């Protein structure tokens, strides 16, 4: 693994850690398996790229992308709560609908952003680490801010209500919490995060592509599960940190597996490696128990 591969894995890990935090919100906090993300990630990229090419300020473009993501999550939530559709199905339908919508937004299957203004060359050029990475520190700052917002939100009365609605809906209702509305709020915030990650991906990698979302949910879940397997997640702070470190770690494992010649793996083996990593990660709690008993 050389320096470029190292920083590349770190950068991608940081971007996907925002997706992982979004998934933590929907999948873990609300216990809602939300497949919208495979559509809202490219949606964020598509909106952001289109807006920038249209001449919009990159920061505004990023915020519009988040808004689009929130809307897509809200639609999934509406289908699940108002139309009483199966959670999985609601997410899948939004996801495939977004594929067409993303094509409409961009007007073509992909868009290049090379040479355009991005939030990175507009705001963060002073944070570049010469000859290593211009993106690492800016991404770290963004992830820290976004993580802090999630942490503070989940600690408010509203955030507590959201966690209660996901943990025990009947009890939440008895305490005056409208659990349906909490699902709508939670999925909106979750997909705003995912779309933000998509927007950052487009601005760092220099393109948006309609098929770039495929597998987002799996990568994010892998990050969440890897983080939970290896780190303590008793408090929200720990859980969010585990999302970030899990996402980075996942990218490293993938990078090592695909770039080392010893394993004989190639880029197309990514999905197989991901599946194996997830299976292994999910065995960690059982192994921990096993060794605890043996001692």
């Amino acid at each position, binding site marked *: 693994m050389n320096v470029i591969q190292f920083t590349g894995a770190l950068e991608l890990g940081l971007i996907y850690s925002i997706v992982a935090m979004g998934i933590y919100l929907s999948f873990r906090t609300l216990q809602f398996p939300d497949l919208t993300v495979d559509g809202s990630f490219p949606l964020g990229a598509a909106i952001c790229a289109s807006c920038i090419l249209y001449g919009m300020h990159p920061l505004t473009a990023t915020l519009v992308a988040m808004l689009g993501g929130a809307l897509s999550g809200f639609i999934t939530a509406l289908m699940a709560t108002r139309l009483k559709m199966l959670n999985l199905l609601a997410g899948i339908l939004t996801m495939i609908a977004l594929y067409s919508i993303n094509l409409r937004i961009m007007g073509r299957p992909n868009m290049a952003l090379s040479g355009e203004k991005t939030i990175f060359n507009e705001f963060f050029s002073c944070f570049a680490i010469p000859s290593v990475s211009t993106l690492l520190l800016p991404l770290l700052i963004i992830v820290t801010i976004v993580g802090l917002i999630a942490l503070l*939100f989940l*600690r*408010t*009365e*509203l*955030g*507590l*209500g959201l*966690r*209660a609605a996901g*943990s*025990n809906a*009947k*009890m*939440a*209702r*008895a*305490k*005056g*919490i*409208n*659990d349906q509305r909490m699902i709508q709020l939670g999925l909106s915030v979750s997909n705003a995060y995912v779309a933000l990650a998509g927007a950052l991906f487009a601005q760092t990698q220099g393109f948006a592509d309609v098929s770039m979302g495929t597998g987002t949910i799996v990568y994010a879940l892998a990050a969440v599960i890897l983080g939970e397997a290896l780190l303590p997640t*008793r408090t929200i702070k720990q859980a969010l940190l585990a999302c970030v470190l899990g996402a980075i770690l996942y990218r490293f494992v993938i990078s090592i597996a695909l770039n080392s010649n010893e394993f004989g793996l190639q880029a197309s083996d990514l999905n197989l490696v991901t599946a194996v990593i997830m299976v292994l990660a999910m065995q960690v709690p059982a192994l921990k128990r096993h060794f605890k008993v043996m001692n």
Partner: protein
Amino acid sequence: MITLTDIHVVFSPGTIRERKALNGLSLVIEEGEFLTVIGSNGAGKSTLLNTIAGEILPTSGTIMIDDDDVSQKESFARANSVARVFQDPLAGTCGDLTVAENMALATARGQSRGFKKALSKARRESIRAMLSALKLGLELRLDTPMAALSGGQRQAISLLMATLSPLKILLLDEHTSALDPKTAAFVMELSQQIIREHKLTALMVTHSLQQALDVGTRTVMLHEGRVIFDIRGEERAALTVKDLLSQFGKNVDDDRLLLQQG
């Protein structure tokens, strides 16, 4: 005052599984009354409770809480006046949340929730003080996940949580029946103490005829979705379980009711 007028609740109407759970039930609960509700399985006890709470909306009939018609309001919309403790200790609290977070949830029952910090220092301290009054050592376990507590501890906290914000009626749904006898006695004692101290209006569903007469100020028996027996005051004080059985034996076909007479 809680007024239920001609409440009908029909499950799966128009199908072969149609079942009338409440069949024209009317009941007036005065302020400060402590009702115990008995009846055999399927008599409509739990449905009555769920209808007052709003988990089940009646097919027809009206429910008034004071002058407020809540008949078609969902449970979260009447949580400002109704608090409940469930039969299952796991149901009344959030296992994933800590003890303090559960208490904080209850403090805001029925109020709108905003971006205020849920667990401020001051609130943590008041929660600690309230928990220490239970004398269960829970004040030392504020940050323990609720799931790590025993059933009795969880029911005790559920009761405490019910009193954290103003309420018109407290609903107890066989809330001691999933506990061992000693813990059940403790939780029952605590319930009575809390209802007395806070002068609460309460409705308790029970399967024990003895308990139904020992506790509270008024006893109601349900059968086939209707009130068939309603007694209070001196008349009730003089009543024994035997009287109840001989009078209503034909309706008490539930083994659980009979077995507990020993």
